[in-house]
C-alpha cells in the first residue's frame, strides 16, 4: 500500500482500490496542511479553555483567591439536585415541542424554495432569516404583550370563541409552549437555510431520470429527496438539539426561567451558576450537559443513518 506525496505530483500512482472508497487512499501531506489553520485556532481557543474548565469543575472556585479541590463534589451535587433534573426535563419537553415542528415546516419550506415553480424565492429566503438576526430584546416585549393574560390579543381572539383567558406566560403549563413558539419563530429560518443547502446538493439529473421514468412529483419527493436529505436532516437535528439544550437567552429575557422554574432550561440553569460566581459547579454542569447532548446525538445519528 503505497502512499505518494501528492502535492503537485503529475505521475500519480493510484493506490489499490477497495471498492469506490475514496477515503482509503492516503495522502500524507495534504490533509494535515488542510486542517492546519483550523487546528491552530482549535488548540489555542478551544482546547485550552476546555482543559481549564475541566480542571475548574473539580474545584469550588468563586472567582477570587485560590480554589479548593472538591473532587467529584460538584458532580454529585448536580446529579442529586432536583433543580438540575427538572431543568433537563424542561429542555426535553421544549425539544419535543420545537424540533419535530421545525423539521416539518423547515423541510416543506426548503422544498418549496428549491422548486423552480415558486416565484419570489429570493424574497422568501431573505424574509425567513430576518427573525434570526433581529435582537431578542427588541422582540421580547411584543411577545409579552401579545400573550398577556388579561389584555393580550391572543386571549382576545380566544375570548371571541368563548375560550377563557389562558395564562400563556404566567402558568407552568403554558409557558413552555409559548417559549417554544418564540424559539421556533427565531430559528426556523436557520433550519430552512441548512435544509435548502442540503437539497440543492442533490443532482438534478436524478430527478430528470425519475420523471422520464414517469414518477409523479410526490413519489419523487419521497423516494429521492427524503433519503438524500436524511444526512442533512440528521445534521440539523443534532445541531438543534444542542441549541435547545443550551438555550438561555430566550427564557432569560422573556420569563427569567419562570413561572416556577418551568422554563428554566438546562442552559439557563447553567447560566445562573456562572452569573452567581459558582464557577466550579457551572463547569461541572457544562460537562454533564456535553455528555447528555453527545448521547442524544449518537442516538439520532443511529436513527437517521444513511444507507448508501
Amino acid at each position, binding site marked *: 500500500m503505497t502512499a505518494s506525496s*501528492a*502535492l503537485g*505530483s*503529475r505521475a*500519480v500512482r*493510484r493506490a489499490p482500490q477497495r471498492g*469506490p*472508497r475514496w*477515503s482509503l487512499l492516503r*495522502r*500524507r501531506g495534504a490533509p494535515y496542511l*488542510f*486542517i492546519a489553520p*483550523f487546528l491552530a*485556532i482549535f488548540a*489555542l*481557543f*478551544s482546547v485550552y*479553555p476546555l482543559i481549564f474548565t475541566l480542571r475548574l469543575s473539580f474545584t469550588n472556585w468563586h472567582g477570587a483567591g485560590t480554589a479548593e479541590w472538591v473532587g467529584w463534589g460538584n458532580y454529585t451535587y448536580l446529579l442529586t439536585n432536583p433543580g438540575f433534573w427538572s431543568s433537563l426535563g424542561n429542555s426535553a419537553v421544549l425539544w419535543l415541542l420545537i424540533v419535530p415542528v421545525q423539521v416539518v*415546516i423547515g423541510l*416543506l419550506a426548503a422544498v418549496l424554495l*428549491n422548486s423552480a*415553480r415558486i416565484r419570489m*424565492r*429570493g424574497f422568501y429566503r431573505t*424574509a*425567513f*432569516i*430576518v427573525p*434570526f438576526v*433581529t*435582537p431578542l*430584546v*427588541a*422582540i421580547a*416585549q*411584543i411577545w409579552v*404583550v401579545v400573550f398577556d393574560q388579561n389584555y393580550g390579543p391572543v386571549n382576545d381572539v380566544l375570548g371571541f370563541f368563548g375560550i377563557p383567558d389562558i395564562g400563556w406566560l404566567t402558568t407552568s403549563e403554558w409557558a413552555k409552549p409559548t417559549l417554544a413558539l418564540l424559539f421556533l*419563530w427565531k430559528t426556523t429560518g436557520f433550519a430552512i*437555510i441548512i435544509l435548502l*443547502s*442540503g437539497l*440543492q*446538493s442533490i443532482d*438534478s439529473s436524478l430527478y*430528470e431520470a425519475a*420523471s422520464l421514468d414517469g414518477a409523479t*412529483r410526490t413519489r419523487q419527493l419521497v423516494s429521492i429527496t427524503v433519503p438524500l436529505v436524511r*444526512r442533512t436532516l440528521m*445534521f440539523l437535528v443534532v*445541531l438543534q438539539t444542542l441549541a435547545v439544550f443550551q438555550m438561555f437567552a430566550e427564557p*432569560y429575557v422573556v420569563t427569567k426561567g419562570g413561572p416556577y422554574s418551568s422554563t428554566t432550561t438546562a*442552559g439557563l440553569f447553567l447560566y445562573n451558576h*456562572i452569573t452567581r460566581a459558582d464557577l466550579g459547579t457551572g463547569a461541572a454542569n*457544562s*460537562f454533564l*450537559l*456535553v455528555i447528555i*447532548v*453527545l448521547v442524544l446525538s449518537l442516538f439520532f445519528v443511529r436513527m437517521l443513518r444513511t444507507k448508501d
Partner: protein
Amino acid sequence: MTTAITRRRRPVASQLFLILLTLVFLSPVVWAIVSSFKPAADIIRDPLGFDPSLFNFDNFERMFGDVPLGSGFMNTAIVLVLKGSLTLFFAPLAGYAFAKYDFPFKNILFGTVLVTLMLPTIVLIIPLLLEMKEFGWVNTYQALVLPGSIDAFAIFWMRQVIAAVPDELLDAARVDGCGEFGIYWRVVVPVIRPGIAGLAVLTVMNIYNDFVWPVVVTTNDRMQTLQVVLSTLAQNITGNTIGADYATVTGELLAASSIALIPLLVIFILLQKHFINGILAGSIKG
C-alpha cells in the same frame, strides 16, 4: 425541479403556505420598526396602538446622540469581513480533509471537535479572557476575530456537505493530474457552491448575532460591535435592574435595532444570487 415535462399546475397551496410563514416571521419585526417611531412612553404603555399622528423621530435622534452606532457598524463590518473570510476559506478545506481523507487520529480529532461544539460558550469566557490578557489582546480586533473563526459548526457542516460529493469526480480529477489542492479548488468547491453559500449566510448571521464574547472582550466604544452596543442599551430592560427609566431606553433600542437590520438585509440580498434557483449547475457534466 423538472423541466417542461410536468403539468403547469399553479402551486396555490404552496404559495399560500410561504406567504403565511412570511407573515408570521415578519410581523414582530415590522412591529419593532413601526414602534420605533412612537413616543417612547407609548411603546410601553400601549404597545399595540397605532397612531401615525404621533409618530416622530425622537427615538432615533436620542439614539444617534447616545449610542455609538457608527463605530458599532464599522466594527461589526470589520469583524464580518475578517472572520467571515477565515471561516469561508479554511472551514470547507478542513471539512474536505475530514470527509475525503484518511489520516491517523482523524476520528479522535473529529470527536474532540464535536465535544467542543457542545460545550456552552458561556463557560469558556473566563479561560478565554485570561488568554487574551496573556497575549495582550484585550480590546483588539484579533480578540474579536480569531477565537471561533474556524469553528466546529462550520467544519461539521462542510464535512457533511462534502461527504456527499461523489468520489468518482475526485478520482477523475486525480487521473487528470490535478494536485490535491487543485482537486479541492477546481472540482469540490464549484460542486458545493450552494453549501458554501449556505455557510456564508449562517456565518454572517452568527458573527452578526454574537454578543456574549464581544461584550466581554471589548471595553470601550472604539472596539464595540453592534451587538455590544445594543446589549448595553438593553441591560436596562433585561437585567433585573431596579429603578431604571426603561421607556426611553426601549425607544432607543427599537430605533437602533431597526437601523441595524438594514445592512444585514443588503448583504443577504446580495448573497441570494449564489443560491441556485432550483437547478444544480451540472456537476458530472463538468
